[in-house]
């Protein structure tokens, strides 16, 4: 999802994690304690009160934390929201390794969950009652947070993919909004021919985007069973993606702009980036990041690989987890449950978050919400349908963070040199396999 900010940071993270790793060996083995924590226990903890620290950058949690404290006046929620992405994970990993300063609740994106759950960094929430919440969530996010009968977090939001397009640009050049990726390629050619400054999309190599595209195309490169891992990008789904995307790259139809940069926001605003295939959480970023293009953009279903097919995928999204070293786990779970399953969900949705809960997704009021930014379009209908069409059998690697960090050194080359996407993916696979073996995973070949 996110681009790696800087290599130095990663180095530091690594160095400090390694150096502190030694102290972590004595860390808790709480995994064995699977005795159930009853609702009464949690209620008692809430009545008794206490402090919990929450590390999460999700902006809507601010209101949720305030409401939670109002409801349980003895509980003080200390929300630390200034860090996000790599900096957040670096801090979290360091704290866990050092066994000190670990938050009670931590936001963890779906792609990064495996890394923490496998190293016993997170509390299994099933004994707290989280396993009974399975049916509340859509399949994709629930699959991401659960592993067998263990539950490592509660889904906070989800990112069923949709195609956002700049209607003004499409209207200007009288181009139909593509419904398949082949049509998308055609539209890309027409747009760029009509105005060489206009690109169908930006893509300079983004691991989160590529894996989501593979997901939608039916590719399942990662097979994870505990510490047994399979990595293989050589399947039919990956071929479909490579064929179309290679043409987009070869014909220079993609703006060489990285996502999440100021250039990107500018391109989304001035019409030079005409579409964006992204998660359903994108409207919030549109509103604050590209306020000038209000009314120009619309949402549509993600183009299909075969006409009429309805497969979708998730892009981004995160959960709230309770680290194994959290001090106040009952309160931590209570907050997580409140924010992601209880009353907090409605609050967060009203502030623009995209839910992972079926009740909200299927709610007529949610579906008929008119987005001012999209000129009154009821975009949630499209997003909810996409959510229902997400195939749930996708998994990320237990070391996806590392794999994503080397994406630009491998697949990224396809965007700037003669390397093909297929070769790039192969190189990514090899590098990931090598790292996995070094880390002690059993790699199935």
């Amino acid at each position: 999802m996110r681009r790696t900010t800087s290599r130095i940071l990663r180095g530091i993270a690594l160095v400090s994690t390694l150096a502190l790793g030694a102290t972590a060996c004595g860390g808790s083995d709480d995994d064995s304690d699977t005795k159930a924590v009853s609702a009464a226990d949690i209620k008692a903890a809430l009545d008794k009160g206490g402090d919990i620290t929450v590390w999460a950058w999700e902006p809507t949690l601010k209101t949720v934390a305030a409401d939670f404290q109002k409801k349980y006046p003895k509980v003080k929620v200390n929300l630390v929201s200034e860090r996000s992405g790599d900096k957040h994970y670096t801090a979290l990993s360091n704290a866990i390794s050092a066994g000190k300063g670990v938050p009670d609740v931590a936001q963890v994106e779906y792609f990064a969950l495996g890394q923490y759950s496998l190293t016993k960094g997170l509390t299994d929430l099933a004994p707290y009652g989280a396993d009974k919440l399975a049916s509340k969530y859509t399949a994709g996010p629930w699959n991401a947070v659960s592993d067998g009968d263990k539950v490592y977090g509660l889904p906070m939001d989800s990112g069923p993919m949709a195609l956002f397009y700049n209607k003004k640009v499409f209207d200007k050049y009288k181009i139909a909004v593509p419904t398949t990726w082949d049509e998308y390629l055609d539209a890309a050619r027409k747009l760029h021919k009509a105005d060489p400054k206009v690109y169908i999309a930006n893509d300079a190599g983004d691991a989160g985007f590529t894996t989501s595209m593979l997901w939608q195309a039916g590719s399942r490169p990662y097979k994870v069973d505990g510490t047994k891992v399979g990595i293989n990008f050589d399947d039919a789904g990956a071929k479909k993606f490579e064929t179309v995307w290679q043409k987009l790259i070869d014909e220079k139809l993609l703006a060489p702009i990285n996502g999440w940069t100021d250039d990107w926001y500018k391109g989304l605003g001035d019409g030079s980036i005409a579409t964006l295939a992204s998660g359903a959480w994108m409207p919030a970023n549109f509103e604050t990041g590209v306020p000038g293009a209000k009314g120009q953009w619309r949402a549509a279903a993600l183009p299909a690989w075969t006409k009429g097919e309805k497969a979708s995928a998730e892009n981004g999204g995160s959960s709230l987890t309770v680290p194994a070293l959290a001090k106040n786990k009952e309160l931590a779970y209570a907050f997580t449950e409140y924010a992601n399953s209880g009353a907090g969900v409605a609050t967060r949705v009203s502030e623009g978050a995209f839910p992972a809960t079926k009740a909200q997704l299927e709610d007529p009021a949610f579906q008929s919400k008119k987005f001012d930014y999209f000129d009154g379009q009821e975009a949630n209908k499209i997003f909810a349908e996409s959510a229902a069409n997400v195939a749930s059998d996708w998994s990320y690697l237990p070391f996806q963070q590392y794999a994503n960090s080397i994406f630009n050194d491998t697949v990224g080359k396809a965007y700037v040199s003669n390397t093909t996407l297929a070769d790039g993916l192969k190189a990514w696979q090899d590098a990931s396999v090598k790292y996995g073996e070094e880390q002690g995973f059993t790699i199935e070949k």
Partner: protein
Amino acid sequence: MSTSVTAPPAKSASPLRTPRKKHTPGKPKRSLLLTGLMALMVVYTVAPLIWLVINSTKTQAGLGASNGLWFAHDFALWDNISTTFTYHDGIFVRWLLNTLLYVVLGAGGATLLAVLGGYALAKFDFPGKRGIFAVVIGAVAVPGTALAVPTFLMFSKMGLTDTPWAVIIPSLVSPFGLYLMWVFAAEAIPTELLEAARMDGANEVRTFFQVALPLLAPGIVTVLLFTTVATWNNYFLPLIMLKDPNWYPLTLGLSAWNSQAETIGGDVIFNLVITGSLLTIIPLIAAFLFLQKYWQSGLAAGSVKE
């Protein structure tokens, strides 16, 4: 303050009024090449500042829709400033105070230590002085960035990470400042003066404070400016030392705001990042303008030997 080193004022006023015919040392021959290079340098250094000023007048919408080097239709500077100070319960103010704390204790302490050490090294003879000289010169060559990680590991063992001390203590050491004070003290304080003071019965402490310190003032200002700039702009050290955003200095805080744009559902506030950056450099510019005259005399000191 420093009559012994500054030029007599009577002479310095005259070059302005002399006719432009002759090339005197005060009025050297004009060189097109040098003027051109100078102009390039001015553009190079001033352009980012101008960009910053222009863009801090824009809203987030204006930033995306307008040319970076000219104003947008909307003028939102005052709005931006007030939002910067109030955003997220006024965390910017907290970061500003943190930065001030680090500068006052870190840069102030570094200057104090450099002055004491430099004076001692310049004016006292003791065994091992050559060794210390080698160590100081060597330390000047080691970039602080290279020491950040070892320092982090050490501080982590001592339990000092994630506290203000983790930023202040490493800032206290300024090998360059020490070296500068050493050279400056050697030149600016005539040993005879110290001997005279001792003869008159002043003890070492009194000699230092009443005789040496006034003579060192220009040098002190120079070192203070250097260490202030270094501490004010310090990014890497606090980045690895601090986890708690409440202890962030401005540099880290602004970077955190900037990365909000990289997150799902994150509030994109490039306008506040830019305005915040502008507000962040104003105190530094003010410090330079205010201390400029001392600084210039400090740089020139020692260049002319009586």
